[in-house]
């Protein structure tokens, strides 16, 4: 019925969310469209089954909070560092970070007008191999992989995992500077601005893998508020030759989006397989 703690910790560290047997990882901002001055948003980050409820584990973020001793999820290492980019491209630090039993939380002060991007980018290696007939599993950083895992081990199977988890927040007029992609891993290149989404309207996005169109990739979009309805209500889409896909938002609310690519383009010597995932949270406003 659920992932074991060990595997969850593994998922958190290596950034391997959202495989067939995984809970959902997410960040939920208190608001995504703001007006006025002296603005803040507070963001919850968690791992859960149903969206967006704190019911399973806090999402571990290196620069957010200090895990309580012995807390579940606390054995998973530090997690990746959250990067927050201001509209002018400068870096902003999360504030008032804390890790609770079911969620992590932090605040972001929005001093500039325009669009902020919050990105939790994770990479690492998962490997399985045999050592003296014993099945071993290893997870960790790219740097440690060659040292920790005998490269000639029997049945060595290593996957490079790359994940990106992003919400967007806009103060005043939406801007596009922060929407630029890095050219590494699976990324979203919005055609429709991610803070300009309306119920009943279409939004078009492009998925890029290493900066190139990610073609024929399955994209899953799930509305929040699951506790109060019977159906999951998931929307499944596929990217076209240009990496584009279009979501028609059935109603207002918070949505979770996920896409994953498996290929053989691991940017690490001696690792052939890669799994790259992209997750975003979108807020869709009523008309």
């Amino acid at each position, binding site marked *: *019925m*659920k992932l074991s703690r060990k595997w969850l910790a593994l998922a958190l560290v290596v950034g391997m969310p959202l495989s*067939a*047997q995984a*809970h*959902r990882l997410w960040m939920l901002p208190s608001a995504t469209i703001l007006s006025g001055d002296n603005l803040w948003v507070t963001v919850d980050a968690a791992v859960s089954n*149903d969206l967006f409820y704190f019911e399973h584990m806090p999402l571990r973020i290196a620069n957010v909070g200090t895990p309580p001793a012995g807390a579940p999820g606390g054995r998973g290492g530090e997690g990746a560092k959250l990067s927050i980019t201001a509209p002018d491209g400068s870096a902003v630090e999360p504030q008032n970070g804390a890790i609770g039993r079911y969620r992590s939380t932090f605040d972001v002060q929005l001093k500039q007008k325009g669009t902020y991007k919050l990105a939790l980018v994770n990479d690492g290696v998962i490997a399985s191999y045999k050592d003296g007939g014993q099945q071993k599993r290893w997870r960790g950083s790219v740097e440690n992989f060659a040292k920790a895992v005998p490269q000639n081990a029997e049945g060595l199977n290593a996957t490079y995992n790359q994940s990106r988890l992003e919400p967007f927040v806009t103060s005043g007029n939406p801007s596009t500077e922060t929407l630029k992609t890095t050219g590494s891993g699976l990324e979203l290149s919005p055609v429709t601005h991610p803070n300009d989404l309306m119920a009943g309207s279409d939004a078009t996005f492009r998925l890029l893998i290493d900066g190139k169109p990610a073609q024929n990739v399955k994209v899953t979009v799930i509305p929040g508020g699951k506790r109060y309805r*019977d159906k*999951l209500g998931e929307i499944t889409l596929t990217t076209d030759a240009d990496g584009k896909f279009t979501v028609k938002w059935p109603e207002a609310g918070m949505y979770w989006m996920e896409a994953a690519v498996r290929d053989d383009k691991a940017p690490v010597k001696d690792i052939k397989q890669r799994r790259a995932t992209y997750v975003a949270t979108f807020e869709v406003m009523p008309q």
Partner: protein
Amino acid sequence: MRPLLTLTMSGAMAAPAMAGDMKISVEIPRLNVAEYHRPYVAIWVEKPDQSFVGNIAVWYDVKLKDNEGTKWLKDMRQWWRKSGRELSMPVDGLSSATRAPGEHQITVTPGKGPLKDLPAGEYQLVVEAAREVGGRELLRIPFQWPAKAGEPLKAKGEHELGVVALELKP
């Protein structure tokens, strides 16, 4: 705490239905989803005004350590309000493991349980299914007690349940 129907249940290889038997068939649909978990299912009897009469079966993840499978019982939310929250799971003769996709049979033999003393009248069989990271669905099949001869009564689900059939032997 409301009394439980004390019923004896037998599996798919049930003996031929006897007079007074209630044969229930529940179909768990095979779903093509990225992450599949077998649904939790509660089966009970209620009156036409939806007041609770008695439980027949509860399928949940009984094997998880520390009884952790009980965490999702409340997702069968009607059953939880009507009966589940008053019980301490597991309950002998009531709870059992989740079932794989396919058709599952339950035969309820009245025996000496309350079903034997169930006053004549209108009732309904209720089947509620809830799936982790999936949806939730509830079906009702009205029936007369004591049973009259006739076709099996049926209801069909749309997403979490397939066909649910109720056969009563007069």
